[in-house]
């Protein structure tokens, strides 16, 4: 046997082993336990990223750090283990048919998790009555948009950079953006920051732009509360460079001119276009009698299809248990505001928007697993009953 075949055989044996499956399941249990504990301090988003979407992590256990494989690595190996050991190498026959089907169901479950991680986006669209919007924005993810404006200051087209591409930028390690009509350098990046006026009694280590500067803050466990900020440099007309400050919660973008064209540099929550527009016609909220606790709230919206080109509008009611499924998107009635609104005050409605190609896969997975286990244990039961019947017959 050649060395390659020997190594390959060993690799397949390892990847298909029950021992590996056991170790991986134990690790998943450990990650789930530690992640649940950490959630109290770091919040759901951060824990999900560190413990379940990572390849590795170092768990902070007081004075020492414990290196652990991340959920992404563990689940990836588990997928391979199930595929190689539980499907490919499993002897096919009536005896193992149920197990084979159950393993396939588990593979679908893991695949749905990966597809959701890799492909799904979620966010919200917030509307006052009368507002119409054909896009939604992320709760947590930030992007830097470079928007080209026309002579009247109206946005035309845009280049968008996710925060993953720019995070970590610092004076010693700036992010130099190429491919734009002008040079753009990100010299500072803050995952969460406040913008403050610079007073005369203190100095700061970052540029002061028109009297204000960005001060880094600790990340908020509620990821949607984090407000990234960045310092940007662009060439100015004198051959030098101009420094601008952008902030995820600023009221307007930083506007510059380059080559006779105006651009707006906007740090904002990630935006995703929708193939249809949603207009909020009526928002309805009913409180429990004598309280301000809502018993029911729903949004009557008009959905206008743009994808078909016909601009067909139709009314839809979205309530708490009645989402709108349209063009691969699911819109749920998520919340409303402003909180503590007085009677008669104008309210807005927030619709959660989810685009997950694997939306229904977990349901399919559970059904397949249930079918597989039913077949396997049903067959075992039948065999047992027959054996007992034969034994009684012999007796």
């Amino acid at each position, binding site marked *: 046997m050649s060395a390659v075949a020997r190594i390959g055989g060993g690799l397949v044996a390892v990847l298909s082993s*029950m021992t590996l499956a056991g170790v991986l399941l134990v690790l998943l249990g450990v990650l789930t336990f530690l992640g649940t504990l950490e959630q109290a301090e770091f919040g759901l988003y951060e824990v999900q990223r560190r413990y379940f979407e990572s390849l590795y992590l170092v768990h902070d256990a007081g004075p020492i750090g414990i290196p652990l494989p991340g959920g992404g690595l563990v689940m990836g190996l588990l997928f391979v283990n199930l595929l190689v050991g539980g499907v490919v190498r499993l002897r096919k026959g009536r005896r193992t048919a149920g197990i084979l089907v159950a393993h396939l169901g588990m593979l679908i479950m893991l695949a749905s998790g990966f597809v959701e991680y890799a492909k799904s986006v979620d966010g919200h669209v917030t509307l006052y009555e009368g507002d119409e919007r054909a896009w939604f924005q992320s709760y947590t993810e930030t992007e830097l948009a470079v*928007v080209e404006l026309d002579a009247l200051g109206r946005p035309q087209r845009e280049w968008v950079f996710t925060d993953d591409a720019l995070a970590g930028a610092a004076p010693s390690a700036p992010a130099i953006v190429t491919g734009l009509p002008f040079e753009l350098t990100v010299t500072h990046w803050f995952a969460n920051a406040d913008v403050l006026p610079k007073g005369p009694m203190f100095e700061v280590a970052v540029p002061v732009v028109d009297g204000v500067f960005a001060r880094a803050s600790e990340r908020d466990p509620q990821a949607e509360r984090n407000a990234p900020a960045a310092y940007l440099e662009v060439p100015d007309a004198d051959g030098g460079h101009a420094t601008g400050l952008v902030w995820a919660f600023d009221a307007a973008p930083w506007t510059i001119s380059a080559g006779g064209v105006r651009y707006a540099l906007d740090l904002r929550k990630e935006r995703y276009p929708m193939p249809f527009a949603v207009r909020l016609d009526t928002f309805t909220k009913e409180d429990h009698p004598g309280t301000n606790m809502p018993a029911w709230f729903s949004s009557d919206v008009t959905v206008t299809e743009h994808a078909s080109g016909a601009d067909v509008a139709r009314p839809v009611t979205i309530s708490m248990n009645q989402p709108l499924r349209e063009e691969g998107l699911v819109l749920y009635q998520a919340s409303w505001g402003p909180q503590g609104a007085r009677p008669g005050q104008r309210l807005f409605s927030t619709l959660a928007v989810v685009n997950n190609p694997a939306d229904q896969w977990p349901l399919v997975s559970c059904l397949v697993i249930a079918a597989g286990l039913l077949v396997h244990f049903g067959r075992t039961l039948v065999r047992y009953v027959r054996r007992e019947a034969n034994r009684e017959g012999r007796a």
Partner: protein
Amino acid sequence: MRVDPSSGGVGPAIRRERSRRASRGPEGAPSAAAPRRAGRPELLERGRSLSEADRGRPRRGRGWRTGTALAGLALVASLSSCSRGAGPRTVEAPDARPFVGDGFTAGASTAERFGLRAVPPASGGAAANGSGALPNDATHAGLGDASGGAPNGASNTTSTGAATAASNGSQHLRWTAPAEWTRGPERMMREVTFAVGTSGEAECYVSVLGGDGGGIAANLDRWRGQFDRAPFTEAELASLPRIDCLDTVALVVEIDGERFEGMGGQALEDAAMLGAVASIDTHTVFVKLTGPRDEVAAERERFHAFLASLERVR
């Protein structure tokens, strides 16, 4: 393990037990000689994978060691791939796409960009103009005090680092306001705000910004943009009226239009604006009076009187 007193003690008993276990084969599996239960083949045997059990292959003893090595390799690879080196890095721009959003106020000054709350107001302005901020954005909205304290952001009435020092003056300026004007609450990035006119929709305020405040021409163009009008041409800028103000020369503009949209997204029909800009040393002073067209016209004289009263604090 029970020890038979007649067997010669604990030591020999342990040796016998070890010998017995060894005869069962590796890892406690039944030896080949051990009888198996007829008619009930084991689907899984201890220490063997499902596939191996089905194929009847012998267990590969180095499997776990190989697995450990693979896991270690994966860990090292992931660590090395995730480490981000120091030094400049290049980010390639993606293809441009059509703008996604509802529009925004281009050309806003730094003060206006950071001086307003990011929360959609009750009037729906912020949500309508595309900021789409969440209600809890309020935790970041607004500027903190100049001593570097925690951001306040409770409302637009939060005082700034340039807090007013007296009723008729601020850190940078002194003034004499017309008796008809009512001083409003302190606003972020504003020296002072007055309510003028009778409708409650007109106001006059003064801002003092560092440097050129983002560009004097850019600010004037933005003011025009608030009335949905094209930016000033060079000729128009050159012909703008100039008055003596703050020991220097100030540019004065008058703009009107069918619709005015403020920074917060609030709209006003048939509106007008009186504005003045003056550069003083390292700062730029902006004075702006906006409101319904007829009320603004009625305030023109008082506006100029107010400009004339402005003095620098030295």
